[in-house]
């Protein structure tokens, strides 16, 4: 498949179309809405399922390859905030603390984007190595510390508590825990829960992306015209930079194309859950609405609709 076919196939797949439906519904001010409690529960289900499946597939993965990929992920997460911060300070007038906060979002990852990319890869026949789930988990936190350093913040008294709060963040604990359970129970465990964690996964993802479309569209509608265009453009630059760096590291460590595309996606994505909450605790002066709009309103739709097929095409071209 060439890039165009890939993009076209991705675009007319139910998950992406339901995302677009949500986006449009929000933009025309429909009152369509999925209750918060259910949206949260679905995100928990998806993280559990993706973690568990990754763990089950670990049987087939050499541990050295996993360790290399995790190291690459940590490096990306720690380094990318410096690039994002530099770019923001050079092109916009955002205060230091806001730029540092946004930078932390871009170094870290969006687990929702990762899940959508894994599913897209599976649909294309480009399944990734199980350890990519561990890479995703490992990339959540390093960026936060880079962001704090960029803001000129020392960890001070609250430091210990904060490290703990970040490391034990619900989505990290669940991702790592489900991964470990999948690894421990292997194919026998998978056979027990496949109908729930496997068969209905893509359908549930459709419902979830409908919801994310609604939330992203509502956010866009609310902040349209308020954000500086130089900041908005950052939300389109960073995924491309991240994906390029991801590919640049995937090649030397020898990832297969599906895994490389996921590493690119992780680098290209911006956090929407863990980092925003950490920033409210550690950098309360940073305005959360700017980073949330960028992350969910600009970068997430870009990655979902255009980025993911692009990253898979690039990975296959470079490594296939």
């Amino acid at each position: 498949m060439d890039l165009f076919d890939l993009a076209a196939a991705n675009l007319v797949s139910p998950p992406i179309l339901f995302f677009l439906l949500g986006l449009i519904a929000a933009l025309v001010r429909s009152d369509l809405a999925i209750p918060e409690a259910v949206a949260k529960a679905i995100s928990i289900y998806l993280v559990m399922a993706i973690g568990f499946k990754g763990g089950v597939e670990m049987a087939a993965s050499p541990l050295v390859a996993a360790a290399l990929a995790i190291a690459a992920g940590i490096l990306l997460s720690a380094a990318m905030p410096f690039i994002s911060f530099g770019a923001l300070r050079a092109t916009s007038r955002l205060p230091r603390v806001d730029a540092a906060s946004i930078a932390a979002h871009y170094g870290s990852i969006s687990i929702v984007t990762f899940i959508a990319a894994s599913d897209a890869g599976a649909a294309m026949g480009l399944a990734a190595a199980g350890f990519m789930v561990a890479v995703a988990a490992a990339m959540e936190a390093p960026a936060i510390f880079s962001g704090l350093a960029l803001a000129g913040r020392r960890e001070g008294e609250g430091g210990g508590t904060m490290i703990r709060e970040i490391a034990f963040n619900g989505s990290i604990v669940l991702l790592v825990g489900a991964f470990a359970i999948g690894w421990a129970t292997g194919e026998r465990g998978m056979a027990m829960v496949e109908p729930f964690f496997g068969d209905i996964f893509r359908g549930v993802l459709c419902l979830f992306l409908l919801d994310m479309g609604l939330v992203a569209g509502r956010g866009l509608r609310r902040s349209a015209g308020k954000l500086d265009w130089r900041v908005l453009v950052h939300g389109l630059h960073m995924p491309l930079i991240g994906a390029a760096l991801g590919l640049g590291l995937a090649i030397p460590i020898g990832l297969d194309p599906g895994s490389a595309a996921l590493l690119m996606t992780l680098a290209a994505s911006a956090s929407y859950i863990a980092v925003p909450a950490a920033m409210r605790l550690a950098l309360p002066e940073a305005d959360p609405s700017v980073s949330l709009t960028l992350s969910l309103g600009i970068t997430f739709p870009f990655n979902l609709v255009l980025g993911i097929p692009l990253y898979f095409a690039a990975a296959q071209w470079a490594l296939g």
Partner: protein
Amino acid sequence: MQTTLKKRLEIVIEAPVIDRLRRVLDDKGVSGYTIIPAVAGRGRHGRWNREGEISDTSRMLVLFAIIDPSELDDMLAAVYAVLSRQIGIVSVSDVQVVRDEHFRRTGKPA
């Protein structure tokens, strides 16, 4: 019925710092508090709406605590020390209670 004057402290606060706020109230030995969810709102930081949300960042909670008037200043100072840079508001009103002893400061609770 015989009633006693108390103060009702009402705090609208962003969800990520609710644990810090609870710790402050616990440390001050407040006799109790209740937290209720908010679903939407508006303030200087803009509008928000929880429908479909999975991130806690823009979520607001409303905490109220009925306390003795003598504890008010101390409590407000402690609350502001922790929350001054966070998103939220604080207000105080008068209420009457029947069982005075129920709302007296206690030692630090479990």
